[in-house]
């Protein structure tokens, strides 16, 4: 190939490749941006898009806590501190302290596994940033409360029925691996949120 032919080939290649390159970037200009503007400009909160079994920050439903200390014993790093007293006369258990140190918690989920009622469970909440370690200790009890006790043979208490249903769904799913399929999730009334991929809003 002669020098002149190479010269004009370079010219042609430059023009053609820049032409196509400009077309590619122009096609990006007319597309919707892919940015997800976490946290404040989301069409759906991220927490609402997470699955039911997501191991977020721990929560305790004290209304259905039996005070059995199973979670305290299961915790491998002792981030759960529970204090109970047994009332010999009424045979009730009084819980006077239920603290979870989220700074220590490693979100292993071993505490929610042995819970008989599903009172201690993970939520989909994950935004735990704070300004001091002290404030990361969640204190669930302000005044001592009487622990929940299942009545034999009777219908569960109406006041805590919803909580119990939710808790048992949570525990059952743990017990049966693979049962956290959409059908099982849909069975739980509060867990009907299907995993939704966050859709980026229009470019703002």
């Amino acid at each position, binding site marked *: 190939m002669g020098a002149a032919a190479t010269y004009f080939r370079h010219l042609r290649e430059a023009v053609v490749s820049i032409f196509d390159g400009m077309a*590619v970037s122009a096609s990006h200009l007319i597309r919707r*941006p892919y940015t997800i503007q976490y946290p404040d400009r989301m069409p759906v909160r991220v927490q609402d898009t997470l699955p039911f079994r997501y191991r977020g920050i721990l929560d305790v439903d004290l209304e259905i806590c039996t005070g059995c200390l199973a979670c305290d014993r299961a915790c491998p790093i002792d981030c759960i501190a529970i204090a109970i007293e047994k009332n010999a006369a009424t045979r009730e258990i009084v819980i006077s302290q239920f603290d979870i140190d989220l700074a220590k918690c490693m979100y292993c989920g071993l505490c929610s596994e042995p819970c008989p009622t599903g009172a201690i469970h993970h939520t989909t909440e994950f935004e735990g940033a704070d300004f001091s370690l002290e404030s990361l200790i969640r204190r669930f009890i302000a005044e001592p409360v009487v622990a929940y006790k299942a009545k034999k043979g009777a219908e569960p208490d109406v006041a805590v029925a919803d909580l119990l249903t939710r808790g048992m769904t949570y525990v059952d799913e743990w017990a049966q691996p693979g049962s956290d399929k959409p059908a099982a999730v849909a069975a739980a009334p509060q867990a009907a949120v299907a995993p939704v991929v966050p859709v980026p809003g229009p*470019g703002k």
Partner: protein
Amino acid sequence: MEAWLNRLMMRGVFGAHPIPVLVYASGIAIACALVLFAIALPFASIVTWVERRVWARIQSRIGPNRVGPNGFLQWLADGLKHICKEDIIPAEADPRLFKLAPYLVVLAFILPWAVMPFSSSLILADLNVGILYMTAVTALTVVGVLMAGWASNNKWSLIGGVRSAAQVVSYEIPAGLSIFPVVLMTGTLSMQGITRAQGWSPDRWFLFASPFCFAAAIILFVASLAENNRTPFDLPEAESELVAGFATEYSSMRYLFFFMAEWGNMFVSAAIIVTLYLGGWRFPHVSPSPIAMNLLEFATFNIKVLIIVFVSMWIRGTLPRVRIDQMMSLCWKYFVPIAFVNLIGTAVWVAIWPAGNPFAAWSMLAVGVLLAAFFVRRVVHFARRSRMELYFHPTI
């Protein structure tokens, strides 16, 4: 403008016996200040926000959108931030040259506005050597940049400054040679004269006057990118090689001056291209009122300039930076010979058709429209193809 001042003097606005020189000087000073504060500085600031948004969209991002509506006030926040920063002068630097350099760069950005033909009457000074003046004063940038690079006493700054000098001096030649075809056809160097020689319709723009003019316009555009140190020719401030090039040691307002001048020069070079090849402010005579006509012409000029500025942003979002040897070979082996061919070709063209060739103009225009249509087809093709790829690989 002179006529308007004369009328005011006749009416005795400035007293019974005004001194004409003082009246003209103060009138021009006020007009300069108005143009600077109403057009030049807001443009140079706001265009930073526009540019960041355009790049962001090219990269499928959103861009700055937090300060003000859609991030519109981002430029104000950036400017305030720079004003509040400490003005550092390195101990080993030459303090006088170091302080002087940013002002020279800004001067090179401000001086061309004197001959900017915004509309038929809105021009500060219609010099008979307007376009020559424009190219001469914009080349002053290189003095400031080289001065900044030398005075910083830093090897990165010096390499950046010398690269800029080599680049600007080289690309002045094809840029100058691409201005001559228009001068050949019009026989004038005045900005208004060149604009008036064109018509409002695209077939009477010099862009489509002949194939040589078309090539010259493209060379002028690319050379103006190089003269403004814009991607793909931003070698003087190549971040990956030279930290920030000649601006490495600068901070605070002095740093801001360099970038204000860089972004402002986009307007200036786009205005040169619009005036020479895209019909300038020409607009059909739709209204007898001179004020309405001037406003329409002003809008026409600015819209054309903003389109050219947008294209240069778009190129910046598309093309990677060239190597220094590629940049030099592009200039000396491709642009300079082609620019000479354009010059001689235009001379022959003018000798054959002194009054222009309408048939050639219309066919050039038709070719341009076809190219644009083909381009739109390519854009749609790439948009569709990407949709398919995203369907198969949602994570890319």
